[in-house]
């Protein structure tokens, strides 16, 4: 009686049955990986109906040296200095509460856990781990200042007016 394994065995030592089993398992694994990727992609929204992140802050003339304006809806401070205008996010870097400007103390304080920031966004009191981010300020065609809360710019980059 011939040995069954010898009949099926090829030169490489892989039987036909093993080859098809491995090919089948491999195909299933590829299909499973593909399905996982497609599902992950499915879960990522392609169009978001979120409110726009930019807003018109006013004209450069509105921001004389020392003026601090708060946009409640977009949660941002727009601050005038002697050499230009810059915008700060009002979202506390600790856990996302809205930090409030205290005009008498000239600082920005978070009501949730007591973090404090100076008017350049630097942390003067914890627990906030990072300074408030600076936001993009541009001028549109009509000369209005446009602040985009979705774009963070390097600190200290004041918009010259």
């Amino acid at each position: 009686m011939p040995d069954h394994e010898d009949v099926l065995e090829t030169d490489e030592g892989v039987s036909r049955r093993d080859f098809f089993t491995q090919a089948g398992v491999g195909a299933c694994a590829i299909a499973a990986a593909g399905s996982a990727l497609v599902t992950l992609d499915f879960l990522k929204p392609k169009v978001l109906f979120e409110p726009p992140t930019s807003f018109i802050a006013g004209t450069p003339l509105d921001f004389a040296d020392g003026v601090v304006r708060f946009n409640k809806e977009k949660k941002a401070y727009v601050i005038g200095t002697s050499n230009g205008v810059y915008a700060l996010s009002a979202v506390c870097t600790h856990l996302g509460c809205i930090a409030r400007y205290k005009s008498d103390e000239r600082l920005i304080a978070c009501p949730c856990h007591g973090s404090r920031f100076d008017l350049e966004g630097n942390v003067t009191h914890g627990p906030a781990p990072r300074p408030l981010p600076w936001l993009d300020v541009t001028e549109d065609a009509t000369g209005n200042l446009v602040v985009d809360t979705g774009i963070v710019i390097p600190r200290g980059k004041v918009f010259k007016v």
Partner: protein
Amino acid sequence: MTASEWVRSTSLYRSVIRHGVGETNRNRSLIIFENLFLHVHPVKVREKTLRFTHTFWLGGITMASMIVLIATGILLMFYYHPSVPQAYRDMKELQYVVDNGIFLRNLHRWAAHLMVISAGLHMLRVFYHRAYRPPRQFNWVIGVLLLIFTLLLSYTGYLLPWDQLAFWGVSVGTNMARQAPLVGDTIRFFLLGGNIVSENALLRFYVLHCVMLPVVLILLVSVHIWRVRKDGGVQGPLESDGASS
């Protein structure tokens, strides 16, 4: 022939339950392992392991709260739309308009608190009775997963009333997720279905809370209880504890 004997003699009854009444050890065993829901339990347990002071019934309390949560949760779903601002109105309608709505909502809330507390205490009990040791080390791992899924359920349910507490709770929580290195922002984006806590986030948390997490939890609970049987029953206080101390 009594009425119950007659019921047991009908072919309908015999087709569902094939074993006799629990008068013999054999039938008492059959009652357990011929039943899908009971067969995860041991056929025999030592009487002392059923005593309250043996386990303080903490796992059982957790399981009972889970059943209460599923029952009340399904009923609450009949009145709840996971959309803005309808979700908040539905929650108020349940409280003030729907008959027994406030009772079911409060029952759901208190059972949720109880489940988290009893799961935590159950874990402590298991730890102090050294029940995490071999052969039960795998069931400890299942238990840790169950605690995580219990907390995830608790957290996803937190957003659903869509009130200030819910909104800020989830704002803070997803900002914590953002702190994860490299993938933090991606995790937050996928969790919220966007960049802000909005309708997408409410819908995602709703599906997680009502479908995906409960399915995983029920599967894990089944494995957990079945493993108690496979690992030799519950481990209470060690016999030597009383003698040595």
